[in-house]
């Protein structure tokens, strides 16, 4: 089904109507998301102008950054038709690793890179189980989630890490007045978007997710593509873990609750099709920003934060519903 929708898309491009490409742009998930973010911000702003201060807006973007970076890798994983529910636990473990290294006087560069390497190893292992031993990703990562979560509490007792050297806090730096995480988010999203659009391996990700059999017949190794995706996803989660770990002056050695749901929501709401085969990382970034705008908006509108998770569930449902209906319409218009 994904292949047919692509064929349909290329047809519209060939016919070359600029009006059509305009409606295509206006109908794209990224555009809808951008408009939702702006509309929502305006609504909150008109009720409470303090929402619109530069400080709050930068805060929202900065808080969205590690979600967005995590959602880059998650998008790739979902585009191949897999999922990873262990990322929240993994980020908790990574933050503890980074904090422990920093507090025990290891060089700062080591405290920064160790979590990234650790995440690549863990995700590489998950990728191996999924690609070569053919265990469904949902089960592997569900198991991994509890192994990491339980292991972390067992090893640390959930203790707080204090007295970390000041230069460790990468995410607190503000070059040219803009919080460091935003630089990371923008750079990584651009790099990942270019890579996925232009490199053969990047295209292969879509091919594997769209139609694994066709991908295999065109000489794409599904296993190697999956391994690449999971290791890259590990890298992104590592960076997300680093940004997460260095944002406050203390680190709690527990798993941040609901983080995996936030990252998955960002990826799905960003237009990554849950049926595999399509989606962009720019959308994932906008998805992350939307979640943070909603969260911040709820605070400014005095809505209880306890509803946030329900809102996320509804967001996923709406996006998935729209995606499926859109695909049905496309399939129907080909049939005519």
């Amino acid at each position, binding site marked *: 089904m994904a292949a047919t929708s692509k064929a349909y898309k290329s047809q519209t491009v060939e016919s070359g109507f600029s009006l059509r490409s305009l409606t295509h742009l206006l109908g794209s998930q990224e555009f809808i998301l951008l408009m939702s973010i702006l509309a929502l911000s305006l609504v909150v702003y008109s009720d409470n102008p303090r929402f619109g201060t530069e400080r709050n807006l930068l805060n929202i973007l900065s808080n969205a950054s590690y979600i967005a970076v995590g959602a880059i890798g998650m998008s790739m994983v979902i585009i191949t038709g897999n999922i990873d529910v262990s990322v929240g636990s993994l980020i908790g473990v990574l933050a503890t690793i980074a904090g422990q290294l920093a507090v025990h006087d290891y060089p700062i560069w080591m405290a920064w890179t160790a979590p990234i390497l650790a995440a690549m190893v863990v995700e590489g292992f998950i990728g191996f189980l999924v690609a070569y031993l053919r265990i469904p990703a949902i089960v592997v990562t569900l198991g991994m989630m509890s192994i990491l979560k339980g292991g972390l509490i067992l090893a640390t007792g959930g203790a707080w890490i204090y007295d970390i050297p000041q230069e460790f806090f990468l995410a607190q730096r503000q070059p040219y007045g803009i919080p460091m995480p935003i630089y990371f988010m923008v750079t990584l999203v651009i790099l990942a978007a270019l890579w996925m659009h232009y490199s053969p391996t990047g295209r292969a990700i879509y091919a594997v997710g769209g139609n694994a059999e066709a991908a295999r017949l065109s000489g794409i190794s599904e296993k190697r593509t999956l391994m690449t995706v999971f290791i890259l996803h590990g890298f992104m989660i590592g960076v997300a873990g680093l940004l997460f770990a260095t944002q406050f002056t203390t680190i709690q050695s527990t798993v941040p609750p609901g983080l995996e749901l936030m990252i998955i929501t960002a990826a799905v709401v960003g237009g990554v099709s849950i049926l595999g085969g399509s989606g962009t990382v720019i959308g994932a970034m906008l998805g992350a920003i939307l979640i943070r705008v909603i969260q911040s908006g709820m605070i400014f509108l005095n809505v209880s934060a*306890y509803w946030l*998770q329900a809102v996320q569930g509804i967001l996923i449902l709406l996006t*998935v519903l729209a995606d499926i209906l859109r695909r049905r319409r496309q399939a129907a218009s080909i049939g005519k």
Partner: protein
Amino acid sequence: MSTREAQREPSEWSLTLREFFLGQEGVLVVFLVIAVVVLAFTSQNFLTSKNLLNQARLMTEVGLLALPMTYIIITGGIDLSVGSIFGFSAVMLGWLWQEQGFPLEVAIVASIVIGTLAGLFNALFIVYVRVPPIIMTLATLALYRGLAYGVSQARSARGYPEWFFRFGQEDTFGIPTQIWFFIVASIITWIVLARTPFGRGLYAIGNNVTGARFSGIPVDRYLLVIYTFSGFMAGLAGFLFTSRVSTTRADSGTGMELDVIAAVVLGGTSIMGGRGTIPGTILGLVLIQLLKNGLSLSGVKGDATIVVIGSVLILSILINNFLQRRFAQA
């Protein structure tokens, strides 16, 4: 994969003696015996009727959820939202009774109805909109948990009357009351799965859903029933849980889906669908409960158990795949 499963002989569906000893159930029984012997020798408190009945009491809630989960995984689906439905219906029970002033009897029934409706909501999207079960139930995992937090504002409800504890804390005919619920549910789900066209249809759906449709099996109706049933059981388990622990909290049942899925998969139900039995699931449940019990008796902290269950989940699928491949060769 689908071609290989389509080639499978129908006779393989019925449990022959040889398969029993070579297959998952046989392996589980051996493990079970070893676990009991080891536990009996390491702890004097293990092999007492008090401890065993208590373990059965603790097992009931996960057990009630594992029965419909077996059905769902046999069809090749999954329900990740069971822990959230469980927590949501428990919260609604407390909220309707304490905050809205309904009689407790009404609140109990309403909470089970709410669980059933939550399952039905999953089912409608999965069947009619064709949202993949993983994504649908992941979304409602967030949604129902969010509703539990939102409705209760994370306040717990307590102070239930004495008669309410009869279901979760007292005995009926010599064994903990809730075990009767589990026994009845197990027998019914076992017979339905093994002996009715509905049950056999679930295997057909898991082996080849298109083939099942073409052979006239009402696939949509069957799927609708099992996901709704899963919600009903989550509601029932939520009520028994509330009665057992005397309080309702919005985070009740968080992560429960892991225990449930681990028990089902350990019990030999293939995560790819098409294979699995209720007795296998019950063996898986008992084995996991013994593991938990053994760990706590030997003084291991609670957090170690989730590490063990996570590992059991992954390992049992690896072993499952290995056994299946060996059968395919034989």
